[in-house]
């Protein structure tokens, strides 16, 4: 076997009194894809950051191609050939795609930025990912998925010797993921070492050569063979046995709660959509990235305007001018972007829960006692691991998501819409969220779940509405839905 490109020895990291990495050692060889797995908060991103020079280890050492390696800045790491695709999007929305791809390392000619070359080379990188958008376009306004692809293009342009991908597919659909994998395989064949982080088990099996599991900052296990059963890997991650991911669904009532007919958006991102959701039913919405799912559910929850069609709740036609109207009627939405739409991350959990319930807190004077008890009830009821007075930014993604769900469910809504409810969330936490969803249905609530994760829509839905390019491609019953039938409709 050749020498490792990178080798970590006894890496530890403390944040104040909190130890998030404990004595982690790891070798990465050229031409292999190592999966780094672990629950939310296991330390995967922290470890990636250390390798890429954006964080410094408290203890331990690294070698790069046999030489001692201790990057003090991201720049040093990049110059050596270590490239990290961050978990959070690292784009500048006001600048063009091309400029984002080459940020900090613009191609130069005669001491000035060579824009023509920059655009040309950026366009080439986009093409590798089957992304056909002009590289001169501004990033602002692109869908999350496309932004994620640009983030990947940015890394591809760097000629890395070691590439770390931290949850690159969390926002991607099947086709985009496939294009990415093609590039990953190509890089692997060129001898690039790759560390791949994801919560999606089926991908792990497809792309990785070796699996390393972190738990509570410790390296607990390694599986040399990607054929290891998912169940075994998951149990190693969570440190206990996990009986099932998806709970059994209750049988819906036949009382329609939400009826949508002929709904269209002014920007045409969805057109003439008609469906209903019954009490106790979970309706999944599937589709390719950009199919208009998010826009559809935003319209239903009053966040965006509609241009035609009607929304009825228990037979009554609704005129929704803004979310306030929808919320007052009992329609609530857990948005797809937790950090920008779901939570004020810099504020406390309790505050965040209160924000969605300001009108409910008896009288209009909210004493700290009222506030605390209300928030504590919500935290306990929905199994948030955290205290009401903690800042939302301190929670793991899964727990943040539970807070968003909790703040809405405290209102006893009639319709609950969840857009990408488990994006970036580990298997353990995911099971918890599925339990909450199913419990809602059991109580007779009408539930809509939008997801790019096919396994997820299939797992929690009574019926599945498929959108293709804004058009309603069909509605599948649970017994007729499988990955093939859904994809067939989605790619019409």
């Amino acid at each position, binding site marked *: 076997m050749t020498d490792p490109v990178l080798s970590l020895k006894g890496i530890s990291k403390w*944040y*104040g*009194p*909190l130890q998030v990495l404990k004595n982690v050692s790891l070798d990465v060889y050229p031409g292999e894809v190592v999966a780094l797995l672990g629950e939310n908060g296991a330390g995967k991103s922290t470890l990636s950051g250390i390798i890429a020079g954006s964080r410094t280890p408290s203890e331990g050492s690294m070698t790069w191609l046999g030489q001692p390696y201790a990057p003090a800045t991201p720049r040093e790491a990049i110059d050596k050939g270590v490239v990290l695709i961050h978990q959070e999007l690292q784009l500048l929305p006001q600048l063009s795609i091309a400029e984002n791809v080459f940020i900090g390392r613009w191609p130069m000619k005669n001491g000035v930025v060579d824009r023509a070359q920059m655009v040309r080379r950026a366009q080439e990188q986009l093409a590798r990912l089957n992304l056909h958008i002009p590289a001169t376009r501004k990033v602002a306004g692109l869908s999350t998925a496309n932004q994620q692809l640009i983030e990947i293009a940015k890394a591809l342009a760097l000629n890395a010797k070691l590439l770390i991908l931290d949850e690159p597919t969390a926002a991607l659909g099947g086709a985009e993921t496939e294009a990415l994998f093609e590039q990953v395989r190509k890089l692997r064949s060129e001898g690039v070492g790759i560390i791949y982080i994801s919560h999606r088990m089926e991908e792990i099996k497809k792309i990785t050569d070796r699996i390393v599991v972190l738990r509570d900052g410790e390296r607990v296990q390694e599986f040399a063979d990607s054929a290891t059963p998912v169940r075994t890997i998951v149990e190693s991650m969570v440190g206990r046995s996990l009986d099932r991911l998806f709970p059994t669904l209750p049988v819906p009532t036949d009382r329609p709660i939400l009826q949508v007919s002929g709904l269209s958006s002014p920007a045409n991102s969805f057109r003439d959509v008609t469906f209903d959701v019954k009490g106790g039913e979970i309706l999944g919405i599937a589709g390719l990235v950009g199919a208009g799912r998010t826009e559809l559910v935003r319209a239903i929850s009053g*966040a965006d305007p509609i241009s035609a069609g009607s929304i009825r709740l228990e037979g009554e036609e609704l005129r929704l001018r*803004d*979310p*306030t109207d*929808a*919320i*007052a009627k009992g329609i609530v*939405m857990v*948005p797809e972007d937790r950090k*920008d*739409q*779901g*939570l*004020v*991350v*810099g*504020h406390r959990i309790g*505050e965040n829960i*209160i*924000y*969605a319930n*300001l*009108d409910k*807190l008896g009288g*209009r*004077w*909210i*004493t*700290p006692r009222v506030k605390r008890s209300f928030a504590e009830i919500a935290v306990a009821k929905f199994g948030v691991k955290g205290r009401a*007075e*903690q*800042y939302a*930014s*301190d929670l793991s993604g899964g727990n943040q998501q539970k807070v968003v769900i909790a*703040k809405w469910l405290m209102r006893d809504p009639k319709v609950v819409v969840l857009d990408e409810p488990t994006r970036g969330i580990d298997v353990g936490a995911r099971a918890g969220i599925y339990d909450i969803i199913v419990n809602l249905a059991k109580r007779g609530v009408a539930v809509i779940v939008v997801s790019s994760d096919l396994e997820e829509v299939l797992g929690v839905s009574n019926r599945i509405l498929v959108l293709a390019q804004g058009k309603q491609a069909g509605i599948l019953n649970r017994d007729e839905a499988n990955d093939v039938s859904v994809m067939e409709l989605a790619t019409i």
Partner: protein
Amino acid sequence: MVALDINEQRLSAGTWLGKVKGATGPLVGLLALCAFLSFSTDAFLSVRNGLNILDQITVLGIMAVGMTFVILIGGIDLSVGSVLALAMMVMGWTANIAGLPLAVGIAFGLIASGISGLIVGLLVTQFKVPAFIATLAMMSAARGVANMITDGQQIVGFPDWFMMLAIDRHFGVLTATVFLMLAVVLVAWLFLHFRSEGRMLYAVGGNPEVARLAGINVKLVTIGVYVASAVLAGLAGIVLAARLDSVQPSSGFGYELDTIAAVVIGGTSLSGGAGGIGGTLIGVLIIGVLRNGLNLLNVSPFLQQVIIGIVIVLAVGAETIRRRRA
């Protein structure tokens, strides 16, 4: 970050300091300033001087409350100084030129300032003009109108009871104007802490999109806040008129920066969503005590400017150093 947070949590859970989160540095600065001045000058530590300082900060204090609201929602209000002048001139004109009772003049003055705030609020919410520009424009326009009312002339001489509001020390201690400022501060504090509308300001400032999706009427909150800021600026103008027993259209020139400084020194973040009235009170007191102290120390006027600059940086920088250490 965690270390900081843990530290803040500990504070807010237990000690009294925690009540003015984010303003601990400035509070320490204020106490240090007071301690220093008590030792270095006899005149500082006396009831009389304390009451003087309170008198001197009334106008700034009232305006700073409104500015706290504005900055909490992530906005800015550059028009306060001009709106103050506008309210004064409208009041003066109504009472001394149109000859209506002074109380009516006061009402008209407050209404005029409220209208300015409403215009700003509508520009910001309906026409998406950045707050900086909308209030800068109002700063110019309100000053122009204030000038036009009397063609730039001051108006002097109001009924005695009015001036007495700023002079008579009730129960031997507080003037009516100081009492008014304290009431404004207290009500604002209660409002921000306990009223659901108050919490909305934090939500809007924290992230307007999150707030909107949570069913908060962001536009209404924004308009309300600019109206409140303008009306409080108007009220500050009325207080100033009582204190000066006269009104002139050039009043309040440059006050916007003083006011914003007081709020920011008090730990309210210019990006919105964090801070509060407690901190603002500390910020106002730092400015008031500093100016008073430098006068008492007989520091030459030019050197005062230099020292004020340094103390402002220290008061705010102390917060950073505290955080680093924690």
